[in-house]
């Protein structure tokens, strides 16, 4: 038997100092942006700068302390990246509010950010081991579906701006689909872990792809049916695309089979074409997408006016932007929610937008990295699915605003004004942090000399 080594085992670094420094950096950038807005509009540093800056800084410090206590091994970059995006969103909303845009309210958004941090904390404290979620696979699926269809319930559901995706509780409105997507990712992860082998192995080979068996198509067809249901009944193009795309991506992660992706794309294109032929609102979106410059469409209500205003704004911004507080993003309808990306583009230009997209990309990279580092299949799929849904959401809305794909009403994660999306995304980040904590935690250390029995400190 070897003598126990006195040298403590070297552990992977927690990098807490780096995390705190990056967090402070993000808060300083956000405060600088506030000052910039004030200097440009009123020629003085705005009085609210300290309130907003310290408010955001306080929330993030709280989140950092929670992280250090309950998930010390978590990835050091996730929180600072989210802080920067959330803070820039606040600045743009503040800027639109000071331009007198009705509906924009930075104070509301700051309060929602605080509630988001509270939910982040609650998730981390309550959910000590995310693998407990695997036992709730089908419960999560049921909750997700219930949330998704809840706006269709009479008296509870509300139709705003043509989409029936809201429920009213008391005086407040809520978008349950935002929370449904988290539930559904948990369900997909648990389901695919159980059924992965049959989906990945059974089937036969045709030309160059492995085709699955016909009976294994069931889950894909069911999810497809539900996405189409959302599309048709709630007129919510965004959520429909989001859920179906995430399912296909997770199916691909689980099985490594290209045929699932091809089947998914074919099903979606088929479904969308069918929906386009039968339902007016899908058709309208498509016409706008193909010919936004058409004067008739521009003048039509629900036509391409909003899209073109966004494009004009980004064009006005050019490479370097007009500078914070010096453009006219308030001319874009809904610039504080769906079109916040265009408003940011006008004032920060391509250079700023690329930096913003890089921050999103780094966030997704950290999520996928967590997925690679995770040691059990459920965590891998969950982390992969959560990162993908974040990336996919950014792609759908940014693609829509820049007219790369037909516009669908989705929020830009962490930036757009709106409580439901912000809260749901903070919970998403808490889940990612929890998984990354488990994945990066070093293996249990033996606390005594090796012998017949071993005692582990877990």
């Amino acid at each position, binding site marked *: 038997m070897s003598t126990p080594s006195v040298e403590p085992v070297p*552990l992977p670094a927690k990098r807490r100092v780096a995390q705190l420094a990056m967090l402070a950096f993000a808060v300083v950038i956000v405060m600088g942006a506030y000052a910039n807005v004030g200097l440009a509009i009123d020629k003085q540093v705005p009085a609210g700068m300290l309130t907003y800056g310290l408010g955001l800084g306080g929330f993030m410090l709280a989140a950092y302390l929670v992280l250090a206590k309950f998930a010390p091994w978590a990835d050091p*970059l996730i929180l600072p990246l989210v802080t920067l995006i959330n803070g820039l969103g606040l600045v743009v909303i503040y800027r639109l509010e000071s331009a007198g845009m009705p509906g924009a309210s930075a104070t509301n958004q700051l309060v929602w950010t605080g509630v988001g941090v509270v939910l982040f904390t609650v998730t981390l404290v309550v959910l000590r081991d995310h693998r407990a979620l695997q036992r709730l696979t089908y419960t999560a699926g049921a909750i997700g579906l219930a949330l998704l269809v809840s706006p269709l319930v009479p008296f509870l559901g509300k139709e705003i701006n043509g989409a029936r995706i809201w429920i009213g509780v008391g005086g407040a409105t809520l978008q349950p689909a935002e929370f449904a997507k988290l539930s559904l990712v948990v369900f997909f992860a648990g389901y695919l872990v159980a059924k992965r082998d049959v989906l990945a192995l059974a089937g036969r080979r045709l030309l160059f792809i492995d085709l699955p068996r016909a009976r294994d198509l069931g889950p894909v067809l069911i999810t497809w049916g539900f996405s189409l249901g959302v599309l048709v009944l709630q007129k919510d193009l965004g959520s429909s695309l989001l859920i179906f795309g995430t399912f296909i991506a997770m199916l691909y992660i689980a099985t490594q089979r290209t045929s699932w992706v091809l089947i998914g794309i074919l099903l979606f294109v088929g479904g969308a074409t069918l929906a386009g032929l039968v339902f007016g609102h899908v058709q309208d979106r498509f016409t706008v997408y193909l010919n936004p410059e058409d004067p008739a469409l521009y003048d039509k209500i629900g036509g391409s006016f909003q899209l073109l205003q966004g494009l004009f704004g980004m064009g006005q911004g050019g490479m370097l932007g007009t500078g914070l507080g010096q453009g006219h993003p308030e001319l874009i309808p809904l610039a504080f929610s769906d079109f916040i990306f265009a408003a940011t583009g006008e004032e920060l230009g391509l250079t700023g937008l690329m930096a913003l997209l890089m921050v999103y990309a780094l966030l997704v990279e950290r999520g996928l990295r967590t997925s690679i580092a995770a040691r059990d299949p459920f965590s891998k799929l969950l982390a992969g699915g959560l990162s993908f849904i974040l990336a996919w959401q950014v792609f759908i809305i940014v693609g829509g605003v820049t007219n790369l794909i037909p516009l669908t009403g989705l929020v830009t994660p962490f930036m757009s004004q709106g409580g439901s999306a912000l809260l749901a995304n903070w919970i998403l980040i808490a889940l990612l942090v929890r998984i990354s904590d488990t994945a990066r935690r070093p293996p249990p250390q033996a606390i005594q000399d090796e012998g017949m029995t071993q005692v582990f400190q877990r």
Partner: protein
Amino acid sequence: MSELTLLLIRLAFLAVLWFFVIAAVGVIRTDLFGSRTTPAVAGRKVPKAVKPMVKSRKGEPRQMVVTGGPLQGTTITLSEAPITIGRASDATLVVTDDYASSRHARLFPQDGQWIVEDLGSTNGTYLDRSKVTRPTPVPIGVPIRIGKTVIELRK
């Protein structure tokens, strides 16, 4: 506030924004090139005691990589602690595989070598082609097969 000042502020803000991105990438860098886990202070205190140890460790594996099976790509940095592999959720490497037992095999370091030991699994553990019947030293780069999962030690 003159135009020029605003222009300078604008450019400075964009530069700072990109600096943040670069700083974030700097934090990630350790992912790509590995991190120096020994704290600098400890290294300064006992430089002589550490140095020969590091030297003698040169031939030792530093990480375990899953090269085949559903968990392909996972790496575990080796420390002094033993690694358990199996379907049990408290194993270091959790495999979901019908051919693996809940506590399938164990890897532990001894005298500068890593030893693989089968923990009475149903379908056995294979080191390269041969079945592991008693604790066997694992050379670097030789595949260990557990059910559908293949792992190997790397420097």
